[in-house]
């Protein structure tokens, strides 16, 4: 060996070893960061083994109020794909994170940015928009994932996003999406039947926040009123009193509350009206039992069934 080779062998070998993983990048998993666990679950359905998915928020958090922690930047910087619920649901924390994440791929308009609401027919769009209405979303009600039909549309948006960042795997994503669609449709028929049989369909309910119009549409019940007088505005004694009277008059049997609200006021309403209070998980991960998007509706209907049939709430 010449002196030259001796001197450079080690550094060159090291360099070769360091670059080796890059050659193997074709097998590297697609790194997906989502804002919610619902999106993460659907991404796992569509991406399968080809993706690693992480959600920034947990299902028991109010998705309007997630802190924009700097630790999220570390995750976003490495992401190949970013998926958000959109419609201003995450307006208080996502835009600043994306601008600071040093990852132009996942900026709005980039190949790695997915707004899952893109093809959703959103509700409550086109009404009066002004802060006198409370904390309204000018782009429509963003809680659209609570209709399983919309889960299919979200999955399509995620499929398209994954195919953009990994075109070679597009056929896999397409077939996994088709399979997911088939499974959702099969379950959907089962859920709708169950909603009818447990007496949810056709009933009138009261919810805390305006989170459930899509869920109500999917399962055919009417949301009569809200514990919040206006979105984001905390309840007042007067409103609660009027609500209680109205619930009694209308014989409302069900009070649905998101787990991140203080249950004290709803408990009082339930006591005074005889309605069953259900702390209903609005997202995957809201409770330990809810681990997938398909499991979310099973869990929700199970809790409502228990409440309506008096098996505790």
């Amino acid at each position: 060996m010449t002196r030259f080779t001796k001197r450079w062998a080690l550094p060159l070998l090291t360099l070769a070893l360091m670059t080796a993983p890059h050659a193997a990048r074709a097998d590297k998993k697609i790194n997906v960061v989502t804002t919610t666990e619902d999106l993460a679950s659907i991404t796992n359905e569509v991406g399968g083994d080809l993706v690693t998915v992480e959600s920034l928020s947990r299902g028991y958090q109010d998705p309007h109020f997630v802190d924009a922690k700097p630790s999220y930047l570390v995750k976003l910087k490495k992401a190949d794909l970013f998926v958000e619920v959109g419609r201003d649901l995450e307006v208080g924390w996502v835009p600043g994170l994306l601008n600071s994440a040093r990852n132009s791929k996942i900026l709005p308009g980039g190949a790695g940015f997915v707004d899952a609401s893109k093809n959703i027919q959103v509700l409550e769009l086109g009404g009066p928009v002004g802060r006198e209405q409370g904390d309204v979303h000018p782009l429509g009600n963003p809680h659209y994932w609570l209709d399983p039909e919309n889960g299919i549309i979200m999955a399509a948006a995620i499929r398209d996003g994954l195919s953009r960042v990994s075109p070679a795997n597009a056929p896999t994503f397409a077939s996994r999406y088709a399979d997911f669609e088939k499974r959702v449709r099969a379950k959907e028929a089962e859920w709708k039947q169950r909603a009818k049989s447990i007496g949810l369909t056709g009933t009138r309910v009261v919810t805390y926040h305006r989170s459930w119009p899509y869920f109500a549409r999917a399962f055919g019940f009417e949301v009569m009123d809200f514990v919040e007088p206006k979105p984001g505005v905390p309840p007042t004694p007067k409103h609660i009193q009027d609500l209680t009277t109205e619930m009694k008059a209308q014989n409302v049997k069900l009070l649905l509350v998101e787990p991140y609200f203080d249950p004290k006021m709803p408990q009082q309403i339930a006591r005074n009206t005889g309605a069953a209070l259900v702390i209903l998980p609005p997202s995957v991960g809201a409770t330990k039992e809810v681990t997938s998007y398909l499991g979310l509706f099973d869990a929700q209907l199970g809790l409502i069934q228990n409440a309506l049939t008096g098996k505790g709430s």
Partner: protein
Amino acid sequence: MRYHAWAIAVLAVALVSSAAGFAIAQESSSFSDSTVSAPDAAATQTTPVDSPASGGVTAPPAGSNLLNPNISAIGWFQGQAGDALDRTDTSAFQLREVELGYQATVDPYSRADFFISVSPDEGIDVEEGYLTLLTLPAGFTAKLGKFRSNFGKFNRTHPPETPFADRPLAAERFLGEEGLSGIGASVSWLAPLPFYLNFDGEVTNTPDSTSVPAFAEYRGKDLLYLARASTFFDLGETTNLTLGGSYANGANGPAETVDPLAVPDARRAQLYGADATFRWKNPKRAIYRSLTAQFEWMARDPDDGPRRTGGFAWADYQFARRWHLGARYDWSQAIDAIADDTTTGGLGFLTFTPSEFWSLSLQGQDRDFDGSEMSYFFKTTFNIGPHGQHPF
């Protein structure tokens, strides 16, 4: 003088209670509205407006207005009473600032943020106006224009958005009433590590000493150099810690010369800072309870003068959905004084936030200059425009 204090206090209480009453009246009157409108809402649910026939995709209405930047305005109104009014030319009522924000992406590579502050006393000022380059490689971003300097944690917050009616004593004595900002360039680098570690470097003009006492602008070429390292750790799901260290080196006026005809060199002053921010919030009850505690220390080392130090520590406890209670402790030497006496002070505040967009705060400040000096404030800030980023 005492009448003054009482008048302000009565006005403040009246405003707070009328605000609360107004909110309650609004909320209760809305009940009938919402029951009446419930069927209407249900009707609109099935027919989304503005959906083109093809595929039912909902899109916002077309129009050139959509390319307008996000426009927001924050008002900061304040009433003051107490000893400081006797000593200074401060007025009892102050429209401290109206801050106008214009923010949008410029093109796929950059965005622009303008914050114009308007006040009866200070006139119109570009508080910040900068271009951010978003698509730089290797974990870099850069800013060009005028921006609030990355010295410490507190300095970056726009004055209306701090929890306080005043500035912490050390921040005021070292960095001025508006805080340190500069015209120049800033580069920020997020280290490729599994945890958050960020480095900032800034080069700006040295500000003049009337606005920022720590430095003194001299010649155009005497720039201010600033570096900051900051890191963030989740201590658990509910608690986290941000730590930072800052350094700034800027002009400090002309040096003394023997030759009266020679152009003297600039003197320099160096500024060191350390900060720690602790936060607690249970994510399952995020809107009801939280705690933020911050500590900040700074020291100034001029070329030809003594070292002077100061700092502040404060905590803000959100004890109910719309209520915050907080306190701050201040200590600081006077940077240009021969004597190295440390002035101490404190501030207490109780803040009511009827909504995310409006806050009302009663505050009491005690500063120990030559004997205790008490001031009382009523601070209210209110903002209009699109929903902005929640502070963190």
